[in-house]
């Protein structure tokens, strides 16, 4: 019994339509977002008179677009970036995880001093925590049930264990 594959295919069938609709919405949404990133990059480079380079790949690994559009300009900036030492590259560098967690840390810091921020933040984290605790309880029960009433292949196991043990 491979519960994993059978259940995941079941899930796919049940939500077939909504996935298609979700994808449609997602596509236009993503296109719009891709556009705004380029626009924002342009604005930043003009206002601050500096160099910006954005490289964007989609989930399949295809290059979506770059800013600036000109490949030579991009390569120029990248060459300069690559000439840096690893230590230099890490200065002021972030990735997804660091970015979001830093944001949380800053929100927390503001929540400690500002009452409105505190309310908002506490509510947000509280909801997060509450949802998790509820699910955790559900999972506990699930695991307990699974131990008490094991699935199919355990019937032999039960027979062996129910023999007199003393």
């Amino acid at each position: 019994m491979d519960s994993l594959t059978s259940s995941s295919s079941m899930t796919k069938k049940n939500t077939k339509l909504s996935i298609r609709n979700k994808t449609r919405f997602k596509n236009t949404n993503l296109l719009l977002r891709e556009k705004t990133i380029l626009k924002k990059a342009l604005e930043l480079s003009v206002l601050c008179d500096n160099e910006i380079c954005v490289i964007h790949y989609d989930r399949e690994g295809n290059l979506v677009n770059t800013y600036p559009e000109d490949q030579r300009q991009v390569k120029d900036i990248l060459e300069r970036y690559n000439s840096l030492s690893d230590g230099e590259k890490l200065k002021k560098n972030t990735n997804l995880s660091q970015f979001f967690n830093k944001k949380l840390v800053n929100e927390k810091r503001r929540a400690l001093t500002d009452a409105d921020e505190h309310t908002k933040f506490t509510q947000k984290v509280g909801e997060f925590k509450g949802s998790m605790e509820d699910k955790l309880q559900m999972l506990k029960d699930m695991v307990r049930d699974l131990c008490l009433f094991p699935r199919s292949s355990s019937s032999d196991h039960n027979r062996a264990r129910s023999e007199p043990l003393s």
Partner: protein
Amino acid sequence: MVKRGGTKRKADMRKIIDKSSKAVTFSKRRDGLFSKAAQLCVLGDAQIAILATPPSSNSNVCFFSFGHSSVDSVVSAYLSGQRPVPVPEESKEMREDIGICMARKELGLGYWWDDDKLASKSPQEIMQAMESMKILLRDAERLLGDEAVDFDQRKGSLVVVHEKNENMSKSDNAEQPLITTEDDQIMSVCDSFCNYNKDKNAALSTTHAGENFEEWSDMDFEQLLSGFDFGNKTVEEDDDHQIVAVSENHCSNNNNALLLPAAEGEPNDEQEPFGFDIADLDLDTIFEGLSSDEFAHSFLMS
């Protein structure tokens, strides 16, 4: 960063002359740009790299950078003309990353634990998921606490900021290490009961080198299974011995009642193969302190 009072104006698209205004605008817009990119990465599984030179001429940094999965992976993909190495849509690290989880929720993707698929996973996977959730819960508690927190990149978690030492490790904090004997019991009970197939077990267990929380689940499962041979009476005793050995590391009078050897249990009761009623165990306490170094150590010591 959000101003109140409707003071938004459309920015004039020309170079800003005033140095301090330029600097402020730069950091705000840079953050905004990174934010948009991060959202795209989460929503569309995109891989993005952003490089920005500082606005002022005298700065000790060459580039402000953002990259997912990393700046280098995207940059080298571009320069070599190849595709970047794909990022897995869900991974243990991502599930245990509170920043990413909350961001996903804010972007409308919901919490990963609300996914229906979780219900049909094997008990081992469910318990691993619970482990991850415990880690998240700990971080959430820190966020709700009265002290400032910081994100420790090395540990990949939030830590409370102390005046003396900013980067205190997690174990130094006043955590509730509620590793009760019940924890050990229920884990080994459920584990031994639910993992018949070693191969399946091996296939399902994840391997993450160097992470203190994750490794225990592989190791203790394998440990408990190693002596198992179904239909063999002595095996069950081994199981109990392991339970007793592990729980001896903790002093807890309440739990002694649960350490009955299997012989005292109801012999023919198919629902209670382990000699005590699992339903009697206080699962709330059991699962309360699931994840911590102490837990891992106690298992390894058996």
